[in-house]
């Protein structure tokens, strides 16, 4: 009997797996209760059919984009909760006091924080915005492979669910967001935490890779007639660069995670501290992926800023060609700097110097971009909407944080500040003021297009200021602490160091940021409740320049009844200036991709297989993986994956008689 139970449950023992520590247990119970609440609400309001038909089985890029944003938003709350815990711990755990969580829990908190923020918040916002806007900006009806698009989303969500399940069952990794060996090997992390980390990233990573291929083919093969590459909006160029990075960097992550999994599960010796393993190889490979990853995150954010600054300066983007060149220089150079993440691991001065110089070089194209945005603003007729406030916060903070990065590009200096809070402050400056502010600006800017009503500008401006001020208050102390010698990931320190006041100020800063997030939530709720007051949805609420503003808000399911023909950059702006009247439309039938549950099934089966791997439930691994493959084969073999929309239906949708 015992043997049988072991075969079914692997190394899972339900009584042992549930968290014991109060904070964690409370969070786990909270998550479970929220889950029940959501299921209860769906049942009470009889929304299951709607959910299935409109969201779970959709292959439409706009719906998928919204789902990505929803997941990213929820994970932002989880990541911020982790941040709050860390700030509280570090503000209170001094001398004889030991803060609010145990050491091991603290390790899990910062590991979860980093993993969630990078892989599920930042990537989620990015893929969400790209999904929503890319096809519209190139005058296309959808992405190249709609079914694969859905599958990518569900793989992403499967990974997200796995990370959150770890909180309730078995605990997450304590080895940091990158799980360096030998600590992450089974000898020093014998539990399930690192395995959860490996497999949620592996699944989400496959999803990202497929999206990379999807968006590249979309950009290269589905632009509307007349839209040459040099007429594309800058956001599209930035996505082109970022997806190129995805396609070339993510396979490195896949390989490296697989090798770590082999070490942990089958006793191989890739990165172990004995048997011929070389832990330094892991660090090398993971950063060969990791550095391009941060440029993957930031390039589309830069693309958003290009759109926002041009629109709200009522001027075309300055230096279009140099912006394009800058993107590709960044793409190329981001593959040549990865060693700067481990200057201190022991390479010689020659190697360190080469990578240090490359690192300094990569700041140049970024600088070009910043100057171009400022030159766009110069002599423009500027409207200080909330997207512009996000942008201005970005310019100021990103420049300062970037300069800190150039400082650390000098290996000798890096030896002093590597893995200190100075480093932590630097990369948070980059990610928050660059990536996050960029995606917040994009969300606000494109919200009316997606949902048909505008977000409250007033609350939005307050939220932006809270984030900017809160960020400064939270992270300036960390820059100072880093220079004073404070290392990262400390859960306790001696009172004699005099660090506590600075940590308290940092804690206040995160509090201000939380107020900002609260305002963003409020903004959403207020805007939803009061949306009827805005009257008929405007196609073009901001007086925009690019093609997405030529559609209704929200766009019909097919985006464009007639595929536009483009003759210049900022085509929509030019059309408005010359008041070109489009010819009387002659509709043709439109093919639309059908709904399918296959994407959802593949994602969830992959997640089940991954769960099985974590707990050594081998039957689940085999059944989950095989079923996912069978679903994939069945879906791919289907010859009828599209339905046809008749000319009559299109005419009715365009006339506003029918909603699509």
């Amino acid at each position: 009997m015992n043997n049988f139970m072991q075969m079914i449950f692997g190394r899972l023992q339900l009584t042992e797996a549930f968290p014991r520590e109060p904070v964690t247990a409370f969070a786990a119970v909270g998550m479970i209760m929220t889950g029940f609440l959501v299921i209860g609400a769906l049942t009470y309001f009889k929304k299951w059919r709607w959910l299935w038909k409109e969201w779970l089985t959709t292959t439409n890029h706009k719906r998928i984009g919204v789902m990505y944003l929803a997941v990213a938003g929820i994970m932002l709350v989880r990541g911020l909760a982790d941040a709050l815990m860390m700030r509280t711990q570090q503000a209170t755990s001094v001398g004889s006091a030991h803060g609010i969580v145990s050491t091991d829990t603290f390790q899990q908190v910062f590991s979860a924080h980093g993993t969630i923020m990078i892989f599920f918040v930042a990537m989620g916002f990015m893929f969400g915005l790209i999904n929503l806007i890319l096809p519209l900006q190139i005058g296309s009806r959808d992405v190249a492979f709609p079914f694969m698009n859905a599958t990518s989303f569900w793989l992403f969500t499967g990974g997200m669910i796995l990370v959150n399940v770890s909180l309730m069952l078995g605990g997450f990794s304590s080895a940091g967001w990158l799980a360096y060996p030998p600590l992450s090997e089974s000898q020093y992390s014998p539990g399930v935490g690192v395995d959860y980390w490996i497999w949620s990233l592996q699944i989400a990573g496959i999803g990202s890779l497929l999206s990379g291929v999807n968006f590249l083919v979309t950009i290269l093969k589905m632009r509307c007639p007349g839209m040459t590459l040099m007429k594309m909006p800058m956001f599209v160029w930035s996505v082109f660069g970022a997806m190129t990075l995805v396609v070339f960097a993510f396979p490195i992550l896949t390989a490296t995670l697989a090798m770590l999994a082999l070490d942990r599960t089958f006793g191989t010796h890739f990165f172990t501290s004995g048997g011929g393993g070389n832990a330094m190889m892991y660090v090398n490979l993971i950063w060969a992926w990791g550095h391009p990853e941060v440029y993957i995150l930031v390039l589309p954010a830069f693309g958003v800023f290009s759109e926002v600054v041009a629109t709200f300066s009522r001027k075309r983007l300055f230096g279009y060609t140099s912006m394009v060149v800058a993107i590709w220089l960044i793409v190329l150079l981001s593959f040549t700097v990865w060693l700067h993440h481990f200057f201190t691991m022991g390479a010689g001065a020659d190697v360190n110097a080469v990578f240090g110089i490359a690192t300094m070089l990569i700041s140049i194209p970024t600088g070009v971009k910043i100057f171009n945005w400022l030159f766009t603003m110069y002599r423009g007729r500027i409207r200080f909407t909330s997207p512009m406030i996000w942008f201005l916060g970005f310019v100021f903070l990103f420049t300062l944080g970037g300069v800190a990065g150039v400082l650390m590009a000098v290996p000798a200096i890096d030896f002093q500040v590597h893995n200190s809070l100075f480093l932590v402050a630097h990369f948070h400056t980059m990610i928050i003021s660059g990536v996050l502010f960029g995606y917040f600006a994009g969300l606000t800017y494109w919200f009316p297009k997606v949902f048909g009503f505008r977000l409250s500008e007033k609350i939005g401006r307050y939220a932006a200021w809270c984030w900017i001020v809160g960020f400064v208050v939270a992270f300036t102390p960390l820059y100072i602490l880093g220079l004073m010698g404070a290392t990262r990931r400390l859960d306790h320190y001696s009172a004699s160091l005099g660090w506590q006041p600075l940590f308290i100020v940092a804690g206040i800063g995160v509090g201000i940021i939380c107020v900002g997030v609260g305002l963003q939530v409020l903004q959403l709720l207020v805007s939803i409740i009061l949306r009827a007051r805005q009257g008929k949805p405007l196609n073009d609420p901001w007086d925009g320049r690019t093609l997405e503003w030529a559609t209704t808000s929200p766009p019909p399911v097919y985006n464009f009844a007639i595929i536009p023909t483009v003759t210049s950059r900022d085509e929509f702006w030019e059309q408005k200036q010359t008041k070109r009247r489009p010819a009387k439309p002659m509709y043709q039938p439109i093919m639309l991709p059908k709904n399918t549950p296959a994407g959802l099934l593949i994602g969830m089966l992959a997640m089940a297989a991954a769960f099985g791997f974590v707990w050594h439930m081998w039957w689940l691994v085999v059944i989950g993986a095989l079923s996912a493959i069978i679903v994939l084969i069945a879906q791919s073999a289907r010859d009828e994956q599209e339905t046809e929309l008749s000319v009559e239906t299109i005419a009715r949708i365009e006339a506003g008689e029918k909603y699509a």
Partner: protein
Amino acid sequence: MNNEALILHEQTVHTKTNFGFWLYVMTDCILFASLFATYAALRGNTADGPSGQTLFDLPYVLAETLVLLTSSFTCGLAILATNRQHKTQAISWFAVTMVLGLSFLALEVNEFAHLAQIGAGWQRSGFLSAYFTLVGTHGLHIVVGLVWMTIMLYQLLQRGFTAGVRRRLSLLSIFWHFLDVIWIFIFSIVYLLGVLPS
């Protein structure tokens, strides 16, 4: 949709799918490159165990190589038959390709089993972990290719040369040729260079 629009639609689908699949193959190149890099880094880490010099049986590997190479050739012949819509020829050549592919796999599995049996399994050292994973990942891709070929043969028999079947066969041929390209490097870097004194 009239026939003309249908043909145009199918051409568009084929163009996108062809390019998308090529991009996927590029990502697979990066994956193998990472495994090659790891193999190169761990090549000397034999942990007082056997090295490539003692383990690799070059004549055996040459046989494997020629079998796989021939299968790549017969796959090309199968595609030629597909273009001409000669059903029997296409099925025959794909079947031959599959037999050769299975033979390659059998040879490789036999080699792996032998190594494991003499105590040179993938747990023995970093070198062997890297070797088994690099060559084994290629082997796994071969398995995927063979499963795909089986399914395509079934579809060919059931549906004939529909646009979808022909499109998927052309993707499969790209995949199969790509696997032989990767093997060129495994043969050269792992086996040929592996027996040389370092």
